[in-house]
């Protein structure tokens, strides 16, 4: 079977006109979301049984991470703009907005690394306490998602630079967008649970 051949969508499909690739990505997002749920609930359970737990803002730098959160929300916006551009056939716009999104993701990671560095020199390590462990595991798991997202954007950007996408071929961009929005959305949850509550 030809890999690139678009598969027909059966009549009366309850999932409407969603392409098969999109369906696969949705399933992946559910799976990935559940693994985040597993980590967040495990963190909450550890917190519930912990003898003490630092208050919000006591150890973590909330303003810096709030800026990071804002930045990630902005990249969701540029991702929408990228899809919007290619749906109109604007190849240059697609590349421009994908680059912005990727840059945003890289800055996010940079700030996270800075934050980690700051903690590490102050002896706040993975095995310092249950609290530090939960912090590192959850944020690092999310950071790895941002990193994969950045690599994923780079791949799509490469294909875009070869002129792969057009006004009637943007499915891969939309699927990339789904993943990126998911990574953003999960961050808002992680930020709330780890930093704010």
């Amino acid at each position, binding site marked *: 079977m030809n890999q690139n051949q678009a598969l027909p969508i059966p009549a009366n499909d309850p999932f409407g006109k969603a392409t098969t690739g999109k369906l696969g990505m949705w399933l992946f997002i559910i799976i990935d979301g559940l693994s985040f749920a597993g980590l967040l609930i495990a963190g909450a359970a550890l917190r519930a049984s912990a003898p003490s737990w630092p208050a919000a803002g006591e150890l973590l730098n909330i303003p810096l991470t709030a800026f990071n959160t804002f930045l990630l929300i902005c990249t969701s916006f540029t991702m929408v703009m990228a899809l919007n551009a290619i749906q109109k056939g604007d190849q240059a716009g697609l590349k421009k907005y994908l680059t912005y999104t990727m840059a945003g993701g890289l800055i996010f990671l940079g700030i996270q690394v800075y934050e980690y560095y700051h903690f590490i020199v102050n002896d706040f390590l993975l095995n310092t*306490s249950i609290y530090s462990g939960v912090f590192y595991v959850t944020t690092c798991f999310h950071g790895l998602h941002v990193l994969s997202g950045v690599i994923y954007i780079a791949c799509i950007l490469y294909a875009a630079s070869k002129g792969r996408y057009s006004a009637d071929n943007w499915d891969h961009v939309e699927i990339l967008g789904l993943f990126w929005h998911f990574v953003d959305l999960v961050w808002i949850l992680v930020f709330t649970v780890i930093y704010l509550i």
Partner: protein
Amino acid sequence: MSNSHEQSFWSKYIFSLDHKVIGKQFLWLGIFFLLFGGFQAMLIRWSLSNNMEPLPWWLLGDFLYQSSPVGAGIIGPDAYNQLFTMHGTIMIFWAITPILIGAFGNFCIPLQIGAPDMVFPKLNMISFWTMFLASVVLLFSYLLPEGTAAGGWTSYPPLSTPVGGIPGQGQTMWTLALTLAGTSTLMGAINYITTIVRLRAPGMDYFKMPLTTWGLFLTSILNALFVPIIAAGLIILLLDNIAGTQFLVAGSKATIPGGDPLLYQHVFWIFGHPEVYILILPAWGIVSDLLSVFARKPAFGYKVTAICMCTITALSGVVWGHHMYTTGMSPLLGKTFMFLTLLISIPSSIFFLNWLGTLWKGALKFDVPMLFAMSVMWVFGLGGLTGLYNATITSDIYLHDTYFVVGHFHYTMAASVLFGGFAAIYFWFPKMFGRDLDPTMGKIHFWGSFIPLNLVFFNMMVMGYAGHHRRIFDPSEFEFLKPVLGLNDFMTTSAFILGAVQVLFAFNFVWSLVKGKLAEKNPWGAATLEWTVDHPIPHGNFSATPQVVNGPHEYSHPSLKDKDWLAQSEPLPS
């Protein structure tokens, strides 16, 4: 769609994108580990009956455990712990999972729904090779100086953590291997679900799908929902093992306050209970279809069976606490879990009755797949009934961690799932490889498995009721076990017969592959779509997309003349 282009050996047999080849790869992997894990069971039985005696030559006593600290060729207590840990892990995640889900999921789903292939063939290939990598990591742990993981297949902390646990890196390798295997399973789940949603042939409604595909579909949904949870648990366990965290460590040995070993048990069983259904749902589906084929009549209550399977799938997510009654759970919570667990027996009984309904007044043909399918009814019936004693708090508190539990889950998992897998292998072998498995050897394999298996597993429950704890090294040490030690030896002898007969199966498999009788296109007269394709099945499966008009079990329709079945894509003769 059938573009039979030239392919190199590598792209045809090794890095194949064809679901049929990938299915066979999973089958080979599964059978290898089935024999491997089965051999470990033989060593366990030897040790239980002939404690601290050197292994005989026929258990490879001249090669194994030569540098054992308790004497050459002798299984010591540490080695024994490793044996039962790896036996459980391998049988569940490396033998029956690849056979039932990997092999038959891949082989059957596209063929049974009339699809040219899986929807994501590359993902499918990566899924197999991830599983292969997981196997390499797992086998590598046998080379470690301290040996493999030894904390039981459940790997509860503190046994599985470096603080107060078992020394060595075996647990780390175990955790890594299981994470990889889980990743492979998840890739499969995404593929199977999307394929079933998207690639059903015209007319193939959900309620026209064969029950095998139904079982595999529900299994994939459970995998997608619950494997991510254990993945989170495995990450935490891995960090405790390699990064010095103590998320799962408590008590006087903990240097970081606030860890919680019970957290792991919750996470493990939130996944672990659905895992039981992940394994048995495909077997249920296969048995439901096979009973219909070999009774030559439509499956009784087909739709009800499918709906019951869906109900069980939903319920399986909310009963995990029945594994943890003895952890100091609040009585209210315990009773809730008990009630929900017992609720599962209602849909299970309904479809069990449907199986009997299928057989009732059928023209039964006792071919080897049918023998295995019917034996599943027996072993699953016993496994299900004994489950009630484990689900009920009052009896479970006595039976917990005894051989009663071991017998129960061997009846459900080892016997029901494995016999379902054997039924599937005997049934689809002709379609997979174009040759029949030898039926005489098949029948010897069946009776040689069925009788000793019951003698072993039933007596496990008797031993458990007598108080035999599931993980003790030497039962002869205990005064209260003295009266049942004869039974213990009898079980060991039965287990050796059971093991020897599996060698016959492996021989039959390889022999029939080369020398077996060439198979007909539809040797069993089955109605599902996979029997309408010629072998060897071309890459792309169907020469024309089938139009489905019938349900999956059109047998003995009164208007049929020269044959008694109607393929799903074949209109009734007017």
